[in-house]
C-alpha cells in the first residue's frame, strides 16, 4: 500500500491535467477522421486506405486557400467541399467498378489511390513542410503554460461537426437513405433508394470530414505529404477498437486512445507512446475482437 500511495503522491498533477486536455483535443480530431473511415466501412464495406491522404489533401488545399484569401474559415469550408468532390470522383473512378467483388480488392485499390495522391502532392508541393497560421492567437493560463484557445476551439468544432453529422444521419433524408443502405442494401434498392448515389455520397462525406480535420489540425503541426500515414494508422486502430462501422464506438475509442497516449508521453518519448495504442489494439483483439465499445454479440 505504501508504494501505491507513494506513486500517487509522486504523480505530477499539473502535468496530468495538461495531458488530459491535450488528449481530448487530439482525440476529437482523431474521432473526426475515424468517423469518416468507419462510416465508409460500415456502409460500403470499403476499408479506405486513402483516408489519410484525403486528410493530407485537405490540409494542402487549406494552405492554398489561406495563402490566397487569408481567411482560415474560408479554407476550412473550401477544403472540405473540394475534397468532397475529389472523393466523389475517386469513388466513381476506382471503387464503383469494384462493387460486387471481394472487398479485399477495395483495400488494394484504395492503397493504390493513396500512393498516387501522396506522390502527386510530393511532386507539386515538394518535400518542405508548409504551415497554416493559427486563426486565433489568444491563450489562457494553465498552470505554467500559456494554453492556446485555438486547441480548445478545435475540439469544440470537431464535436460540432460530428454532432451535426449525427443529426443529419438521424433526421436528414439522405441520412435516412444512408442508414437504410447500411442495414439492407438489396431492400433499400428495392424501395427505390439510389444505392450507387448513396455510396458516392457517403464517400464524399467521409472525405469532407477527413479534409476538415486536416485543415483544423494543420496549425498545430506542419503540413507535409506524409502527414496522412500516421493518421490513417491511428484511425484504423480506433475503428477496430471501437468496433468496425460503429460511429459512437469510434468516437469513444478515439478519445480513450488519445488520452492514454498523451498520458504515456509524460514518461516516454512521443514516438514510443504509439506503442500504447498498439497494446490497446492487441488486448482488444484478444478479449473483445468485435470492439471495446460494442455489446458482446450473442
Amino acid at each position, binding site marked *: 500500500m505504501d508504494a501505491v500511495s507513494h506513486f500517487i503522491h509522486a504523480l505530477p498533477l499539473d502535468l496530468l491535467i495538461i495531458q488530459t486536455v491535450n488528449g481530448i483535443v487530439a482525440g476529437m480530431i482523431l474521432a473526426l477522421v475515424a468517423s469518416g473511415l468507419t462510416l465508409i466501412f460500415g456502409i460500403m464495406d470499403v476499408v479506405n486506405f486513402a483516408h489519410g491522404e484525403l486528410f493530407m489533401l485537405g490540409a494542402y488545399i487549406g494552405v492554398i486557400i489561406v495563402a490566397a484569401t487569408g481567411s482560415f474559415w474560408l479554407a476550412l469550408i473550401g477544403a472540405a467541399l473540394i475534397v468532397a468532390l475529389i472523393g466523389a470522383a475517386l469513388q466513381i473512378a476506382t471503387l464503383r467498378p469494384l462493387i460486387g467483388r471481394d472487398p479485399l480488392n477495395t483495400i488494394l485499390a484504395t492503397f493504390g489511390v493513396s500512393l498516387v495522391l501522396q506522390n502527386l502532392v510530393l511532386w507539386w508541393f515538394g518535400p518542405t513542410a508548409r504551415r497554416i497560421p493559427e486563426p486565433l492567437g489568444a491563450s489562457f493560463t494553465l498552470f505554467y503554460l500559456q494554453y492556446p484557445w485555438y486547441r480548445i476551439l478545435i475540439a469544440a468544432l470537431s464535436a460540432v461537426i460530428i454532432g451535426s453529422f449525427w443529426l443529419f444521419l438521424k433526421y436528414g433524408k439522405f441520412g435516412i437513405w444512408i442508414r437504410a443502405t447500411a442495414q439492407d442494401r438489396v431492400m433499400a434498392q428495392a424501395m427505390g433508394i439510389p444505392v450507387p448515389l448513396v455510396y458516392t455520397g457517403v464517400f464524399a462525406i467521409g472525405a469532407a470530414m477527413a479534409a476538415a480535420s486536416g485543415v483544423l489540425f494543420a496549425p498545430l503541426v506542419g503540413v507535409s505529404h506524409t502527414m496522412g500515414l500516421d493518421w490513417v494508422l491511428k484511425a484504423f486502430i480506433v475503428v477496430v477498437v471501437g468496433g468496425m462501422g460503429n460511429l459512437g464506438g469510434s468516437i469513444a475509442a478515439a478519445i480513450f486512445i488519445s488520452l492514454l497516449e498523451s498520458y504515456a508521453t509524460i514518461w516516454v518519448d512521443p514516438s514510443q507512446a504509439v506503442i500504447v495504442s498498439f497494446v490497446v489494439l492487441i488486448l482488444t*483483439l484478444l478479449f473483445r475482437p468485435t470492439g471495446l465499445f460494442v455489446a458482446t454479440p450473442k
Partner: protein
Amino acid sequence: MTSVPLDKVSPLGKMRLSHTTVFWIGFCAVMALLIAAPLVLPEFWRRFLTEILIWGLLAMSSDLLIGYTGMISFGHSAFFGLGMYGAAGALIAFGPPNLWLAMLFGLAGAAGAALFVAFFSTRLRDIYFAITTLIFSQIFYVIIFTWTPVTGGENGLIFSRPHLWIPLLYDARFTSTTMHWFVLAVVTGSYLVLRRVTQSPFGMVLQSIRENEARTRAIGYAVERYKMVSVMLSGLFAGLAGVLYAIQNQFAAPDFVYFLTSGDTVIFNVMGGIGTLVGPIVGAGFFQLMRDLLSRMLGDQFPYLIPLGVIFIVMIIFLPQGILGFARRWLNK
C-alpha cells in the same frame, strides 16, 4: 468409322508431352537463362536482376498467404525487416562474418516476429487480418526506429559482407556473379519448397480455407492452426528474402520495416498474378523495370509511384488476375 480422340490426330502422335514434362522443360529453360544472365549482363543489370529475385522471393512468400490461404498480409515488411536486422546482428556481433550464421539469425528473427503476428492476427479474417498485420508491422517499425543503441535507429546498420563459404568445399569473397547465383539458388530452392507445400495435403487445406472457411472448419480441420502455420511459413521465407537483401546491400535500414514495403509486396503480387508463386516474381520484375524505365524517361525527381500507382489501380479493375493469371491453373497442376 470409329471416332478418334482429338489429341491422337495430332501429327506428333505419341510424341505428345505430358504436363509435367512441359513444366520441367520450361523450368529448366528459365533456370538456364537466369544462370547464364550474369555472364552476359553488365554490372548494373546484374545487380538489378539479383534484386528482382530478392523482391520476388519476398512477394512469393506473401503469395502463400494472399493466393493460397486467402489472407492479404500488409505486414510482410516486419518479417523482411527482422530477417534483415537478424542477419545484420549476426554479421556485426560475430567476427569474421559468417554467411550461415547470418542466415540462421535472420530466420530466427523472422520466425519470432511471425510467431507473434500469427498468434494474434489469425483470429481475424479478411480486412481485419490485413489491418492487424499492418499495425503489427508498425510495432516492429517503432521498436527498430527508436531502439537506437541496438538497431542504429534512423541510420540503420552497416556491416561487411560475409564470404561465400560452403564448408570443406568453397570459400571466397562474393562477386556480383556468385552473389547472383547464390540468390538464384536460394530463391529456386524456396520456390520448389513452396510449390511442394502448396501441392501437399496441407496446401490443399489452405486453399480450401481460401474458398470456404466455414466449410473447412465444419469438415473438421483446425482452421486456426493451419492459418498460423501458413503465416509462420510465409514469414520465414520473407525473412530469408531480408537476409539476402542485407547480404547483397550490406546495410539494414528501418525504412524497409515501414509498411510501404509491405504495400510494395502486395503490389508485386497483384501485378504478377496471385496464387501462381512465380507470378509475384514476374510482378516484382515488371515493377522494378517500369520504375527504372520511368525514372530514365522522366528524370530522377519525378515520383515514379504516380504512373505505377495508376497502372496498379487499372490492373485491379481490369486485370485482377495479374500478368500470369491466365496460367494460374496450369502452374498449379
